[in-house]
């Protein structure tokens, strides 16, 4: 199986990295970029075939390890 976990900063939380990149993009002449938010994408290869169980476990891993629920949201895709 392949899973993708996308972790992004919560909307109301400061994303200094996104802000720095937005300015840099303006510096490259692309002023039309109004906001930038930067997250992580984690691609996993998983053995086994029990989708339901894997999903449940992955949910836990995403919450406890891959993201920081205080400041980030996550999304899981499993196929």
């Amino acid at each position, binding site marked *: 199986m392949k899973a993708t976990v996308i972790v992004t900063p919560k909307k109301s939380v400061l994303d*200094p*990295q996104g802000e*720095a*990149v937005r300015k*840099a993009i303006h*510096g*490259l002449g692309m002023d039309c970029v109004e906001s930038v938010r*930067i997250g992580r994408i984690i691609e996993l290869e998983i053995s086994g075939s029990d989708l339901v169980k894997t999903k449940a476990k992955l949910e836990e891993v995403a919450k406890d390890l891959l993201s920081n629920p205080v400041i980030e949201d996550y999304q899981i895709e499993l196929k």
Partner: protein
Amino acid sequence: MKFVVLQFPGSNCDFDCFRAIDEVLQQPVRMAWHKDTHIEADETIIVPGGFSYGDYLRCGAIARFSPIMKSVKAAAERGQKVIGICNGFQILCEAGLLPGALVRNRKMHFICEHVTLRVESQETAFTTHYKKGQLLNIPIAHGEGCYVAQPDVLADLKANNQIIFRYADAHGQTSDAANPNGALENIAGICNKQRNVLGLMPHPERACEKLLGSTDGLPLFQSLLN
């Protein structure tokens, strides 16, 4: 020999480099703000360590677009000497002045400590005061100093004798245990093909005074005076 130290927003070893040149090496040196573009034809350029642009996105990724980097590129092409230390090394790689890239240390942590380096080549303007195989005590301080490169790039580096410093143990062995960050083949510093651009993760400017624990970094700067 005249030196110029670049200053990016977030550079924090700029004054350390300045002081090493000014106070210890006692050579003329000036600072250049990243928005400036002027570099004298007889200046050796130091791209200092720190966290240019907060190391956001990738270390050095944003700094390489600073106006002064065009002048640095031009100067390098003219054969002027350029040293990138730590974040400076990262910037030079991002700017394409040196091959490869620097990624997160393998244990993910920032590491600040003295390490042992082995001099791999004396054949650059930066290393004439060292001997090949000499062991140096120089500190590192980085979170993303793991050097990586594609196999063909590595082959090139070796073929052209561009690997200048490797992490080694006290006996000069480039063992895995002596590799602080997981760098490919223990690589700590490389130069370009023309041998006038040097990048290294360790901080030679922090190893220029006995009081601070080592003077093994000083010959690097002294080599440039020849």
